[in-house]
């Protein structure tokens, strides 16, 4: 015998669809600025059709059943696309849970026996709740992907090694220095030193908001590595506040050439290379 609820759903698919759309359109969380109502309707129809197709007696109690895979796939696609389009978590959650409202609403109309209604409602509730959680997981995954991509882009953009003169490279660091970034900074700097066979590297830290002992340690590491390669490293762009913190923290920068501005660092570099700038 077929489960009562499934029979109702298959019979009244059209009806559920209408109710669901009505719920969604009345909901505050509706974002017609991000998606047109027609798109929303198509998306919802597809989801509902797949759900009613895959639903049968054996899996109504088991939301993890593999026969729900098509439903989960559709849900994942929906939530990832929503995450990328900038829907809030609440809006995405509301979308799935409004389906539950529509389903329960239809059940209420069609099943007259209170005992049966209760049992079926509970089953449907549990099923949709589980889908809700899946949606959320993928939503967060979608968001994380966005964040990860941005982090990658930022770290790639933020370490440009500039060749300022024959044999002199400069690397302006903008933003906080953490271990991962130091690694990238160090690698690209050393790579550039080899490629351009430069003997002087200037690290400009005027864009670094704060220097604590960890950042200082990272800087010292970079300087040591450049020295090992056979190049001299100059740190420039040290702001007064940074000088203060460095001294207060007791960080020893005495072994490193430090300059207040990039201009004076360049001057020092010219001196080391025995170059002279002459006015024409």
């Amino acid at each position: 015998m077929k489960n009562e609820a499934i029979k109702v759903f298959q019979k009244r698919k059209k009806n559920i669809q209408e109710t669901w759309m009505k719920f969604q359109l009345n909901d505050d969380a509706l974002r017609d600025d991000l998606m047109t109502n027609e798109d929303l309707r198509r998306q919802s129809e597809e989801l509902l059709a797949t759900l009613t197709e895959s639903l049968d007696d054996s899996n109504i109690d088991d939301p993890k059943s593999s026969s729900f895979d098509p439903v989960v796939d559709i849900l994942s696609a929906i939530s990832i696309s929503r995450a990328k389009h900038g829907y809030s978590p609440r809006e995405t959650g509301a979308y799935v849970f409004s389906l539950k409202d529509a389903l329960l609403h239809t059940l209420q109309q069609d099943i007259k026996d209170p005992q049966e209604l209760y049992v079926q409602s509970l089953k449907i509730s549990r099923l949709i709740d589980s889908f809700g959680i899946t949606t959320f997981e993928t939503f967060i995954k979608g968001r994380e992907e966005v964040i990860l991509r941005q982090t990658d882009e930022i770290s790639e953009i933020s370490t440009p090694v500039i060749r300022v003169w024959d044999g002199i490279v400069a690397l302006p660091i903008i933003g906080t220095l953490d271990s991962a970034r130091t690694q990238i900074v160090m690698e690209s700097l050393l790579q550039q030193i080899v490629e351009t066979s430069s003997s002087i590297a200037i690290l400009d830290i005027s864009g670094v908001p704060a220097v604590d002992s960890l950042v200082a340690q990272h800087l010292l590491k970079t300087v040591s590595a450049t020295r090992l390669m056979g190049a001299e490293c100059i740190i420039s762009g040290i702001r007064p506040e940074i000088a203060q913190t460095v001294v207060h923290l007791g960080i020893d920068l005495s072994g490193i050439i430090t300059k207040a501005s990039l201009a004076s660092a360049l001057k020092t570099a010219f001196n080391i290379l025995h170059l002279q700038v002459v006015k024409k």
Partner: protein
Amino acid sequence: MGDLLLVTIQVDLYDRIAEALEADLVQMISKTGAQGVLIDISAVNIIDSFMGRIIGNIATMSKVLDAETVVVGMQPAVAITLVELGLPLNGVLTALNVERGMTVLRTKIDSKDNGSEDGNTE
């Protein structure tokens, strides 16, 4: 090469080879009376703390024998590894390539030769 010794390391160094290198090099320095040693490690891709120490040792030993050591052509990855291992090889001179290393050694030796007469300048 005149009063300079050039050591080119072509393979990844294992402990035993490294120790042999250390012994041979010191022997060679005392035998030839070399003033400078160039160690070219541009072909070395892997380095460990032991190797780092051997290089440091060679530099110190040559200094005792009145010769300067320059390590040239270090790979970026090797440099990063050494720094991460906490071996910044203080006291070892470095240069980007053999040519630069020669220049460094020449100036170093020249200033040492003149140093006794006119008080050296860096």
